[in-house]
Each structure stands twice: as C-alpha cells, then as structure tokens.
C-alpha cells in the first residue's frame, strides 16, 4: 500500500471577484517526490502557491498536510502564512523577495526564526540559553549557505548578489525553516544555462536530503530532468498529470503550450 501523501489537495478553488484563478484543483505530493507544476503564463500556478502558503485564503477546497512518518493530517486552509511555515511548508517567490538591507547570512537566520525561541528578556539579558541558540542559528545558517554555495558571501548585503545567487539565497532561506515540503516558484527564471545546471544539481541534492519538492518552472529541460511527476494546468484547471514521458506526448499539453517547445 502506498503511504498517505504528505500534501493532499482536493477541489481547490480561488476566485478574485469574477475571475476564477483556480478551478477545483486536485493534486498530491508523496514523501521524497519532486513534483513539477507547469502551465502557460497566467494559468494560476503562483496563485496556487499563495493559497497553499496562506497568503490567500482559498474560496473552496481542502489542503491537507501529513508530516512524513505521521498519520495525522492538518488542514492548512485559512492558516496564517507563518503558521503554514511552522507546519513544515516553505516557499520561494517568483519575483525575488529577499530582505535586501540585510546580509546574506541574516536572510537565512530569519528562516530560523520559527524554530527558535529567544524573546525580549532573552535578547536583553543575553543569557546562556540565548547565546547558545544564537550560536546554533549562525552555525546552521552558515551550513545551509555552504550547501547552496554562498557561504563565502555570507556578510554581503543581499541586494548586492547577482541574480542567480539571489534565487539560491531564497532557497537557502526557505530551507532554514526546516520544511519537509519545499515550494519553488520558477527558481530558474533569469538564470543562464550554467546556473540552471547548478540549480538542477542543487535541487536533486535537497531532494536526497529528504525534502519533498513542488516546483513551478517554465524551463522544460529542467522540469523533465528533475520531476518524478508533472501536473499541467491552464486557466486555473488541471489539464494533465503524469510522468514526464507521458506529459511530453500529451496532446492537451501541447495544445495549451501551442508552439512552445515541450520537447526538450
């Protein structure tokens, strides 16, 4: 028997006034998988992420999260973004949203916020427990930066990083929250082929570390190389799902992309 999916979405619908951006979407992600979500511009992919992470409250539908190794699920619907993150879901943004006036390391340290405790008194007294916690935050953040290859830039301002590095920093920041499911919104956008190749390697590494990944991406070569399964949506609806080889030859998908090179 297959284990329960860690993420199970059923009938997810999101209306903006008269526009139905998501239309009764069903999707599930299993532990250890890399799942891709593709579709033409304006299909509703980012909206889907926003509904998952609590930035929007969906109009209808259910989002259930089951931490790996657990049998109890929690509903994410209506939770605040920070609570969603606490439950083990973290994301990156399509339009990079780093804290540009903070250093690279501090950006990652922010990700540790929801897993640490020190508050006003701890900050002022700087007692042993707080110092230990700060030490751990710094060490772990360095380790994560090292993983994405940015450790040598730790004390630069985030805004001074090149574009590709900023995208990787977004991933590092999300990883710092210890998610079991990582949502990546077009991580390769604006990257050159070499950077994309490095990203490919990085995502595979993150996956072997035990994070499941749900990925929005337009770069078909990357999608085909990474994903175990692919969901295709258009106009807020799911139009296809399956293994990369199946999606490649699916007529509905080819029609939706009309002229775009699905064959990578």
């Amino acid at each position, binding site marked *: 028997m297959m284990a329960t999916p860690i993420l199970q979405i059923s009938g997810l619908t999101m209306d903006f006034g008269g526009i139905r951006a998501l239309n009764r979407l069903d999707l599930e992600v299993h532990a250890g998988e890399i799942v891709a979500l593709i579709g033409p511009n304006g299909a509703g992919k980012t909206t889907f992420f926003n509904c998952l*992470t609590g930035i929007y409250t969906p109009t209808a539908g259910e989002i259930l999260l089951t931490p790996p190794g657990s049998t109890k699920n929690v509903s994410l619907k209506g939770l605040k973004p920070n609570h969603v993150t606490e439950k083990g879901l973290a994301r990156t943004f399509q339009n990079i949203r*780093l*804290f540009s006036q903070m250093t690279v390391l501090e950006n990652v340290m922010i990700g540790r916020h929801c897993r640490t405790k020190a508050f006003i008194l701890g900050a002022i007294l700087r007692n042993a427990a707080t110092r230990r916690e700060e030490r751990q935050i710094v060490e772990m953040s360095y380790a994560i930066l*090292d993983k994405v290859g940015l450790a040598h830039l730790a004390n630069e301002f985030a805004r001074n990083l090149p574009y590709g590095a900023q995208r990787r920093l977004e991933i590092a920041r*999300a990883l710092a929250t210890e998610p079991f499911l990582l949502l990546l919104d077009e991580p390769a956008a604006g990257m050159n082929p070499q950077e994309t190749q490095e990203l490919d390697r990085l995502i595979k590494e993150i996956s072997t*570390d035990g994070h499941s990944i749900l990925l929005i991406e337009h770069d078909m070569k990357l999608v085909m190389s990474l994903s175990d399964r692919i969901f295709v949506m258009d106009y807020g609806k799911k139009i296809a799902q399956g293994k990369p080889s199946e999606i490649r030859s699916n007529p509905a998908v080819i029609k939706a992309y009309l002229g775009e090179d699905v064959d990578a």
Partner: protein
Amino acid sequence: MLGFKEIKNGLLVSLWFVFLTFPLMVVKVDPVERIVRWRWENSLYVAIGTFAVFLLVKIIIQRRSRNAAVDKEAEQKKESFIHRVLASPRQKFTLIALLLAVAIVFPLFSSSYQTNVMTTALMYVVLGLGLNIVVGMAGLLDLGYVAFYAVGAYSYALLNHHFDLGFWAVLPIGGGLAAIFGILLGFPVLRLRGDYLAIVTLGFGEIIRLVLENWSEFSKGPSGISNISRPGLFGIEFGLDGAIIYIYYLMIVFMIVTIFIVNRLQDSRLGRAWIALREDEIACQAMGIDKRKTKLVAFSLGAFWAGIIGVVFAAKTTFINPASFTFLESAIILAIVVLGGMGSIVGVIFGALILILLPEYLRALSEYRMLAFGAILVAMMVFRPQGLISNIRRTYHSDKKFPSPTQQ
C-alpha cells in the same frame, strides 16, 4: 555647465515664488491708517533669492551626479571613519570612556541653564531611540509617538497629585501604561502600512492630546497640573539646583541603559524580525514570523521608552499641560530618527544632540527654527536619504569551516 533650460526653469520657479509670496511679502495692510502698502521691492528680493538658490541646487545636483562613482567611494570612506572607530573594540572603548568622562564633569563646569538644556537633549536621545525601534527597525511610520510621552507624563502628574506617589514608584507604572497604550494603538493598525498607518497614528496622538485638553475633571484641562514633586533619592529631597544636576545624572544613566538594551535588541532574534518586517512583510510572514506579535512588541517597546521619559519630563518641569504634547513634538522626534539615520543607534544619538542643542545655542535663529528644521529635513532627504550615520549590519562568523548541514 548650466544650460538655457536650467536658466529658464530658474526664472519660472522664481516667478512662481514671487506669486506665492505676494500676499505675504508685498501687500501690507496698515490697519491704523487704513491703507494698503505695496512693497514691490520685496518681490524683487524674493525673485533674486529664489533664482540663486535654484541655480545653486542645480549645480550641486549636477556635480553630484557627474562624480557619482567617485563620490560614492569618498562617502564610504567618510562614513567608515565613525564606523571604523566603532568596529575596533579598543577605539570604541576609548571613545565611550571619553564621552562618559565629559558627560560626568559637564554639570560641574556649566550653569544650571546649560545642564538643563543638556538634560533635555538626553531625553530626546532616549525618545529617539524608542521611536527608532518602531520607525527605524520595524518600519512602522508612527506620527503619534508623543501620545505615549503624554501618557507617561500624566501618569506621574496624576498619581503624584492624587496619591502622592513618588518618582521611582511611578517610573515603571508610567512606562508600563505607555506600553499598554502602545498595544492598544497597535491592534487597530496591524493591517495598515505606510501612509495609512501614519495618518491613523497621527490621529491617535491628537486624540490623546484633545482628551487631556477637554476632560478637565480628569486632567485639569489646558491649565495643566503643577507642583509635581521632583525626584528624590532614598528620601533625600534636593533644592532646585541640586535637582537639576540630579536629573541630569539620572538621564545619563537612563540613556546608557537604553542604548545598552536597544543595542542588544537590535542584534537579537527579535531585532532581525523587525528589520525583516520592514524590508518585506509578505516574505517575512512566509519565513514563519508572526507579523502581529512582532508589530505589537515593536509598538509597545517603543512606547515604553516614551512613557519613561514622560515621567522624567513631568518630574523635571514640575508642571505639565497638554500644550507640551502637540504633533510638533512627534515631528521633532521623528526628525531625530530620520536625520540621524533610520535604525542606527549612533545616528539617533547624533540626530538628537544636533536637533535639540543647535536651536538652543543658536537662540538668535530661534524664530526661524521651524523653517530651518524643514529645510534641513528636505535637504537630508535629497542628499543623504540614509541619514547622518547609516546603520551597518552586524557580521557573524562561523566557528567551524562550514560543516555539512545538520538537519534535525
């Protein structure tokens, strides 16, 4: 270097100014003789003055943009002087010791008046540091900060008047009450940002002042509360001069404590959360930071310092009325934060000393104080938007040589 276009623009601008200042500068009604005097020569002065200032600003801007790259480097060097001093522990220690020594002997060599002025400046340093938490770190534009100052001052005045409570007893009460008011203000404005937040907080400040002004049974209205006790020290009461010096030293201690605490807050998990909130609210929440909690803590901690200084203010002047808590006061404190450098502790200290001491020592100019105030702020925003001393982020270093990640 200045083309025809600039000259033309300059002429237009000066014409516009002549027009604007016409009723003020040219027309003068003499109510005794019942005639109108036309002082046409004034419009000429206005035109020439405006034209000159316009061209000057143009030239400066042109120069700056031409040497932008060179300028930037030079600026960084200039800036790094104070930053360098702060970065090296020995120099920093020497500087602090020196400043402290000067601060301690200051009242021994100066008149009561000067000590009093310095005490006021120190109070504004603490107020600025408090507001810096809200505006500089958390990025919440609060234009009603003076309300919390008033809460502190009135707590002491009323508790002293009715229950004869002493300064030290009311100090935590005043700070605490102000912090509670900070949370009360925080709740309704949690969803607001930027200009909307500014307007609501501005309204809040005015409401508090109007309540104090009109609810006479509670606050004695515009006539205020007098004969507030000066602070004592273990039962010792001071004379006037003694009290001035005592409050001065008190403020030195308060300031040091505040700097210590704010500095620690800034480099803490909470301080980072504030700055992240300022940088990007959505990303901040997506990283697991509770927006409500973080904002409310910023509001209440900021208000706490205002409350404390409010108590000191009431004790120092022994008389308060609502006129001390106008919007102007909020504006001055905000100007201190902006002028000094948002989020920069050293910057705020400099900002407060400059903005409070300069007008005092330039008494001759005090009529134009508000004008100079506005001019300085506008100039700052144009030429140095990051403030006198911009904030530098703390750098952290790893003990190990980047070990492989340890996932829990």
